[in-house]
């Protein structure tokens, strides 16, 4: 499930995606427009800046902006950077793998097998959509059309 951090991060990215070319936005304004606690947003934007998705400018006329075009930033990129692996249960993540305390046999665990499929479905969606896709909420296309338009890998 998307954490609060992931949700706030995506909201901030959409806000920044709406800015005209060359403009920046202050942290306080992003926080207010999206009802995000300022200190929390500061941490989130710091992480997004480190990961190379936003850039910041200090001083007068300063603020935050996307570091790359919105159409190049996939939602899956952001969720991985903010929330870690795209896994609904820790034993379904391979790199951040953790065996459940109550696990009897992982290979036959039906829950785990189901969650591996869920993980696949989640990344199938998040790795195909970009911040640019989130900027036009009125024109929600069906997934098939999006997949045909943006085949990846």
């Amino acid at each position, binding site marked *: 499930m998307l954490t609060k951090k992931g949700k706030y991060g995506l909201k901030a990215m959409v806000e920044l995606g709406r800015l005209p070319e060359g403009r920046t936005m202050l942290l306080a304004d992003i926080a207010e427009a999206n009802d995000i606690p300022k200190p929390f947003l500061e941490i989130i934007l710091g992480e997004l800046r480190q*990961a190379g998705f936003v850039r910041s400018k200090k001083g007068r006329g300063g603020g935050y902006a996307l570091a790359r075009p919105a159409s190049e930033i*996939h939602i*899956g990129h952001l969720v*991985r*950077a903010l929330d870690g*692996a795209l896994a609904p249960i820790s034993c379904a993540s391979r*790199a951040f793998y953790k065996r459940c305390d109550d696990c009897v046999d992982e290979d036959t665990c039906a829950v785990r097998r189901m969650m591996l499929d869920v*993980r696949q479905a989640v990344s199938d969606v998040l790795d195909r959509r970009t911040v640019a896709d989130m900027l036009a909420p009125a024109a929600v296309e069906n997934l098939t059309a999006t997949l045909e338009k943006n085949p990846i*890998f």
Partner: protein
Amino acid sequence: MSNRKLGRVVVIGGGASGVLAACHLWRIADGAVAVTIVEPRPELGRGLAFGTRFDGHLLNVRAGQMSALPDRPDDFQTWLAASGARLAADPRDPLCFVPRGLYGRYLDELVAHLPRPTPAAPAGLEHVRQQCVGLLERDDGVTALLADGTTVEAQAAILATGNEPAASIVSPVAMSPWDDATWAAIPRDGLVLTVGTGLTMADSVLSLLATGHRGPIVALSRRGLLPQPHGAAPPLALDLADIPLGTSIAYLTRWFRRLLRDAAGRGYGWRSVFDGLRPHLRAIWQNLPPDSRARFLRHARPLWDVHRHRLAPSVDAALHRARGGGQLTIVAGRLVSAEATAEGAVVRYRRRGGGELVELRPAAVIECIGLASDPLGSANPLLRDLLARGAARPDLLGIGLDVTRDGALIDATGQPSTRIFAVGPPARAAFWEITSIPDIRTQSADTARKIWQELPLR
């Protein structure tokens, strides 16, 4: 398909990538296609990598991963066992490393049994022993121009021009490691300098030792890094969902370091991490921002290469013996000058870290600087023609042709071709790791599928 005209695809280049592309096309079309491979060499599958006849030159990938067919992972080893080749290793061992020349033979035989096309039965594969010098795209097909003035008409073209040795940096004193005549021409007791300390240096040292070379060998490169040997550890299981795609190279590097540390805590060494990452390298590269790609190439590439492209353990052992015995010395330094003399050459280099200037008088200099990547420097007449006419352009980083994620050639105006596709090394810019068989196998199968699905070949 009975009353329709049979489609034809022309494959330019008959080295490993060309053979794999032709083979996959044939399989996807279920034999209902005509394929023309344009390759001047007499045998197929014998490009720069697999053309060697020397059994000391081993594959850098384990036999178990070398099948040409993704759906039959043991195909190469089945062939190996039936080939009657005398091997130092057990051919049934998937972890063994076998001679590269043998792999060239496997590739040749992979397509040798396909039917030769005739006017009555046009489906099949033909090998035209010519150099392709030009390629024109029309609305309804492509025309390949050959050096003898003839042409091949087809519905689609696959560029499989392969690897080219890098342009010489110490010419005219340098000798080529790709020419078998080099080794016999070197005085046995003379000092030999190799410029470069990578995989080609390893091949060259083995060739020298096999001819009974007794003189000292000095291998020079900027950092003096040697390729690492393979180990036996299994790859770390990594999923694309776990990898921070799309982040900057600085972030990705920090993530990678942490992954190495975490994996070490669970008993996995760096080899397991590199091998676990391997299936995802293409996705990582394609999601990497362009300036991060450039930074990776500039700063991390040498270190990446020596860990990623590793030596067979027996080759590593031979290098160790030669170093231990004092015959082989690895030097980190920057080449300053090289001049030819009557006895060989005078070469000056400066030791790494602003050190002293050293003068060597080798009897022979072998240039082991690896492969060319900038298409603007290519000696291939076809690539030069495509670039000159604007039918192709170099990618932003100058490491290959600009192609789409499907391998379609992008022209000077930014328009992707619907009929010309690149596979293997020329498509490097879109795929990054496209130098070894497991990568080229996947890409050429994808390209063959795309051509078969999207072009009116049927």
